[in-house]
């Protein structure tokens, strides 16, 4: 093709120029169309893929809860996406450092130590892979950028493998049925674990309803909605998608009463109830990897695991008023609006300008000052849990609104 020329007569040249220009412009329709098509596809495909809610036979809430309880899925593998937005101040690395620091007994810890690693789940969005084959073989992997952290339970061995640092953590679990019980408590990261935690709270302060059906990870599911009856709780609703066939919870969503995005949203994006390959649970420490042995008595290992789980589920535990019968800790009220209170023994957080030093001011800047008949105090808020620290050092905490905390403090006075 020769270059365009227009050195003949002026009039034809102009029309040709015009025509050539138009033709030139017309060609750009192609890339623009491609962009448009792509945008339309990105916008429409999720909408089209959402093929509406499946038709399932009606079921009562009671039956559905029984179905969950009776669910006995032994073999599964799948991918879980979990998003947590507790509304904690974003402290970046400092936050996870502090959190993991709090769970550890000190000393130089391997990065492959499960309790350190799984704390990362407490904020942000993560992709997990789970696989299970009976009570003796489970695997949970946290997918990271170009790396993965896996906890593998195979018979007597519990391995933690951090591929990024190439470190291995090994402990020996109690065998057989014990191990199963212990293990179940481990990490409430799957929708099933979270649901069980939530259902423990089911009493007369709770309304449980079946709210239609949904499709999760390509499977038909009932939607179970758990709501606190009392006002004053910061929890708006917990919605659980329960697999219609197996009774296995597939998706767990906790929305705050204040509205907005879910605080915890954990659901399978892909799930299979076939037996996972046996090699999934085989683990031999790679050559050259640093192996940290859990040296204490075998019984301590699951304990350690559970600790990490507990931290994660602490929000639940607090509002459920469970496990709070520890030293110096009292629970006011019950059900959703339970408030834990304990005397921190310290001076509390000084409010106002008399604050001693910069630290007081720094801490105070995170919270809101409140006053009541109890005196003065500071409220620290997240999207789910609020805590009131009074001037005399008493701490009130729970998944309740600020007003409820002040009321509780007033009543305690």
């Amino acid at each position: 093709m020769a270059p365009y020329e227009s050195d003949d007569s002026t009039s034809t040249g102009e029309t040709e120029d015009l025509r050539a220009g138009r033709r030139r412009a017309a060609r750009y329709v192609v890339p623009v169309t491609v962009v448009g098509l792509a945008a339309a596809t990105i916008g429409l495909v999720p909408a089209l893929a959402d093929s509406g809610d499946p038709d399932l036979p009606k079921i009562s809430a009671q039956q559905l809860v029984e179905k969950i309880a009776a669910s006995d899925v032994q073999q599964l593998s799948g991918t879980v996406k979990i998003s947590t937005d507790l509304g904690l101040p974003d402290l970046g690395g400092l936050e996870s450092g502090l959190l993991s620091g709090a769970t550890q007994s000190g000393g130089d810890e391997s990065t492959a130590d499960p309790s350190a690693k799984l704390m990362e789940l407490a904020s942000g969005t993560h992709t997990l892979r789970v696989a299970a084959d009976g009570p003796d073989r489970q695997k949970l992997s946290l997918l990271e950028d170009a790396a993965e952290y896996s906890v593998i339970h195979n018979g007597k061995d519990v391995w933690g493998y951090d591929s990024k640092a190439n470190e291995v953590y090994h402990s020996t679990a109690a065998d057989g049925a014990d191990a199963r019980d212990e293990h179940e408590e481990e990490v409430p990261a799957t929708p099933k674990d979270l649901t069980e935690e939530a259902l423990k709270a089911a009493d007369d302060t709770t309304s449980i309803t079946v709210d239609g059906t949904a499709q999760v990870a390509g499977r038909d599911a009932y939607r179970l909605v758990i709501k606190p009856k009392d006002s004053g709780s910061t929890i708006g609703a917990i919605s659980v998608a329960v697999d219609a066939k197996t009774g296995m919870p597939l998706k767990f969503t906790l929305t705050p009463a204040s509205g907005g995005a879910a605080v915890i949203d954990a659901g399978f994006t892909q799930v299979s109830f076939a037996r996972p390959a046996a090699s999934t649970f085989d683990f031999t420490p790679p050559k050259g990897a640093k192996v940290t042995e859990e040296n204490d008595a075998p019984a301590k290992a699951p304990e350690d695991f559970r600790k990490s789980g507990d931290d994660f589920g602490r929000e639940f535990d607090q509002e459920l008023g469970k496990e709070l019968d520890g030293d110096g800790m009292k629970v006011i009220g019950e059900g959703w609006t339970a408030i834990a209170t304990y005397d921190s023994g310290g001076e509390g957080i000084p409010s106002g300008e008399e604050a001693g030093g910069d630290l007081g001011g720094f801490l105070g800047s995170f919270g809101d000052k409140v006053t009541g008949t109890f005196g003065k105090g500071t409220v620290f808020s997240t999207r789910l849990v609020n805590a009131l620290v009074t001037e005399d050092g008493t701490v009130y905490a729970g998944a309740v609104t600020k007003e409820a905390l002040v009321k509780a403090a007033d009543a305690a006075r």
Partner: protein
Amino acid sequence: MSQAEVVREVVRDVPRRTSPLWTLGLLRSELFTTLRRWRTLALLAVLAAVPVLVGIAVKIETSDGSAAGGSGGEGPAFISQITNNGLFLVFTALAATLPFFLPMAVGVVAGDAIAGEANAGTLRYLLVAPAGRTRLLLTKYATVMSFCLVATLVVAVSALTVGALLFPLGELTTISGTRISFADGLVRAVLIALVVAASLIGLAALGLFVSTLTNSGIAAMATTVGLLITVQILDQIPQLHAIHPYLFSHHWLSFADLMRDPVYWDDLVKNLGLQALYAAVFGSAAWARFAGKDVTT
């Protein structure tokens, strides 16, 4: 094949313009021209040197028994596993070169594709041959894509050689903790090299489009590499997370998902889809520009 043979083939095939052989001949001559340039050879030499540097550095660092990359797992992906298995040097080298060295090389070749010819005054001679502009553009794009593959393979083969010389080979542990045989590992390495090469397709199309906009080869190369750096920076700014999924470099490191067991396909598919989209948009934009361009040089 010598230049004379190419010319003879060209001449012989003139009456059958649509013969695929003709296009192949054009592609072959383009490929040889590109790969014979000193500039290209220097780029490939730099790429081949990266795994050598990484391999020697890891060897020296771990010679006293300490772990590579420190205990916290710093450094490029997979670096701490190299001492277990030399094959991991392939993955580390690709992870180390993918953010900058590889795309820079591709940007240089892609930016030069049309603008370089125009700059040297050879573009009009290319157009005199009865190839048609569309076919010439397609050939140029195919050449750039071949270069993506060649560049990636240069890194991979260099890394495999260095890895085999300095470190043990054998069964390897995937990042999920399962073990796979060395043969399986090699298959995954080849797949990873292909995915890395495919990750550069979007940038190649972008570079080709830029190349049709100007008559200066240097300007086109600089613009392409500049765009690459800009996109990489944008991808690092958390406040811009809304646009991140549409940046061509966003899913580049997803090739590491091939080392999971089972393979996690989500991000890989997203990456390949995004590259195809960039190729379609900027490829057609390059065509729209080039087909109607006044070629005076």
